[in-house]
């Protein structure tokens, strides 16, 4: 391949202040940045994809237990979080829109509002995890092998909750661990180790997926914060706003992951009666 003629290129001159030296035009730079983010999201899809694959296989192998285990998650909290996250996606879209129109002030504001919704999401998530921990749904070293009383405990807690619900009381107490252990008679136990193991796999995948998702949100907060700072400084203009657009793409991706996680984790067993 020979380049027979060459065009003169003026190095270091007529460069827009936001144009990096190795790009020729802002347009090229913007395209490269956006495309780079999309390619990164492709990697992210496959990253979560590994977990979705594990979920799919175990869901296929242990479908009944997965539905039952799913029933122990709180749909109300899950749905609340879905709404919050979609709201944050909307505010993020508005932030990008403001940066396109050159409204730096509102770009920054919408970004901060997005972080606020994100924090709300994690707050709800934290409450939920805490509850899961108290009713022994969090898989850990002690929930291994034959010690399947954790699952018995979770089931008992759920029964008590349903009972309290029926009686019209919002408050309900948690079961006593000793009672659960006393009832934990394998010779009578219809539901044994296998159930416990399969339920634990569900909760393990639940915790892995939701915490990986939460980790992405935490990273998002930092990045959004930085970009909001620059937005307030007036760093972005209708000609140069690709950082805002890219963080937007990232945030929407985080939203999409949740859009799939919500039905797969929370609604799986809803039809079994809640």
């Amino acid at each position, binding site marked *: *391949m*020979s*380049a*027979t*003629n*060459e*065009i*003169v*290129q003026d*190095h*270091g001159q007529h460069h827009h202040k936001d144009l*990096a*030296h*190795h*790009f*020729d035009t802002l347009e*090229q730079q913007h*395209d*490269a940045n956006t*495309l*780079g983010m999309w*390619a*990164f999201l*492709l*990697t*992210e899809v*496959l*990253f*979560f*994809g*590994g*977990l979705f*694959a*594990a979920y799919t*296989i*175990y869901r296929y*192998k*242990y479908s009944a237990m997965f539905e039952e285990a799913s029933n122990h998650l709180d749909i109300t909290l899950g749905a609340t979080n879905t709404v919050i996250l979609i709201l944050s996606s909307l505010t993020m879209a508005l932030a990008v829109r403001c940066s396109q129109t050159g409204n730096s002030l509102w770009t920054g504001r919408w970004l901060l509002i997005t972080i606020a919704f994100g924090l709300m999401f994690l707050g709800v998530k934290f409450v939920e995890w805490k509850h899961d921990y108290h009713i022994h749904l969090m*898989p*850990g*070293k002690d*929930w*291994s*092998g034959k010690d399947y009383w954790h699952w018995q405990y979770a089931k008992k807690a759920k029964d008590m909750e349903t009972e309290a619900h029926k009686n019209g009381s919002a408050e309900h107490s948690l079961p006593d661990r000793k009672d659960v252990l006393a009832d934990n008679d394998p010779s009578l136990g219809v539901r044994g180790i*296998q159930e416990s*193991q*399969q339920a*634990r*796999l569900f909760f*393990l995948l639940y915790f*892995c997926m939701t915490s990986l998702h939460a980790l992405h949100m935490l990273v998002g907060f930092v990045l959004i914060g930085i970009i909001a700072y620059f937005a307030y400084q007036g760093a972005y203009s209708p000609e140069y706003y690709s950082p805002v657009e890219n963080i937007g793409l990232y945030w929407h991706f985080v939203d999409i992951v949740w859009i799939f996680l919500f039905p797969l984790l929370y609604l799986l067993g809803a039809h079994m009666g809640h």
Partner: protein
Amino acid sequence: MASVSLESETFKKFADVAGRDNDVNYLNHDHSITSWLFTLDHKRIGLLYLVTITLMFLLGGALAGAIRLELLTPKGDFLTADTYNKAFTAHGIIMLFFFLIPSIPAVLGNFLVPLMIGAKDVAFPRLNLFSYYLYFAGSVIALTALLLGGVDTGWTFYTPFSSTYSNSYVIVMAVGLFVVGFSSILTGLNFIITVHRMRCPGLTWFRLPLFIWGIYATSVVQLLGTPVIAVTLGLLGVERTLGVGIFDPRLGGDPILFQHLFWFYSHPAVYIMILPSLGVASEVIATFSRKNVFGYHIIAFSSIAIAVFGFIVWAHHMFTTGMSPYAAMVFSLLTFSVAIPSGIKVFSWLATMYGGSISFDTPMIYIFGFLGLFTIGGMTGLFLSTLGTDIHLHDTYFIVAHFHYIMVGGAVLGYMAGLHYWWPKITGRLYSEFWGKLSAGITFIGFNFTFFPQFILGYLGMPRRYYEYPDEFQVLNVFSSAGATILAIGYLMPLVYMPYSFFFGEKANSNPYGGSTLEWTNTTSPPSPHNFEKTPVVTEEPYHYHGKEAAVVSH
């Protein structure tokens, strides 16, 4: 350029010591240590990778030497069983993740991708430097795992051995691989965007050099496959730390799922190693035959085809695991689909040489070796995609020989060919042709001596990863170990004459081999810091030698 006058003082001082010419180039424009360690210049980052992966290669090679020494006799006498297991695990991990995967993409790719497409740099120079430091951090973590006591799981980390039974530093190693995986992802991402968005005017897709097609296809695999191994190793770490059953059947998990997830990346990873080599072969054969590449479009598409087909064949590593026989048949058929584009490439190269004007410089000698070894490696792959024979050959030395023919015979010889071919461009110096050809010849002979006996060993049934073996396998093992010493000499020679040439070699002109791509025709050797004085404009297809001769020769 404004910067020249600023640097001229420093430049004069050091350039004279190194005996450099007086042009400003990327090597001599700034000599400070920080200008190397924090460089955003893709060429310098390529050299940083070159130094680091060479060190890793030496370590991996030393481990291979220990393995071959142990296998000289049937009884375990040189290493203990445990040390041997840790040695082959470390050999596999270092050679695959820390040498082969970054070899051509990160060294030659970094140096050449912007040069070959007429760009000033990769699309994201900071990300590029970050990738290097991720690689560096990953290496440090992996070496830490080795220093702590090593890992004895084999590079495949099969569960439940790795998740429950192994008492070695699996998690540290997994973290190292996780980190280096992200280095690989970000490098691939950078190249994809660079090829898409940074090509110079007139350089359409079908005017791209085939090396760029190879790197592009590789980058796609890196982007799609690596995250899956990252999350799989993450799950392995969770299982090991928390003692919960994701892959351990005693706890309700499924060990075969681990293999599915592992090979979903690790089979395509083979193509991360070999595709760039195939690209180098196309470049070298065209240049040293002075001829356009036969079937350019088909070769370009076959790279993409190999990359995509690479993702649908992974379960051929699992035919004996007790997977569904029906799925085994499907995967066997799909596996053959990779053979076709590979074959097309080899035949097209032969047609390129046909009627050419072939010169026997060192890179071409390496590529002759590459052609032979890659062909044997590819052909022996057919034994393994065929179900009936795979059952017998699986997990024997046949497999070991097969993938070394592909990964060493194919990938490493391609890398050596590329390194020799572009060495004048990288350093501005010529190495000794005599020593170059000698090392190529010795490597080829030593390689065959080492690995061909292993095909027979495998057919006789010797399982892999044995540190002791029944007496009847000794003859071939002795052959193999003897060959390894020859191979080691072949590898060590370039480590002497290439650095020597860097300092004392004859000065190279901008295009010593008559290459036709932009890095030869449009810039100096070594290139200036910003690659091109003027942005090139491409007006014709690559490898356009013909027509230029009209004034010289008519035929």
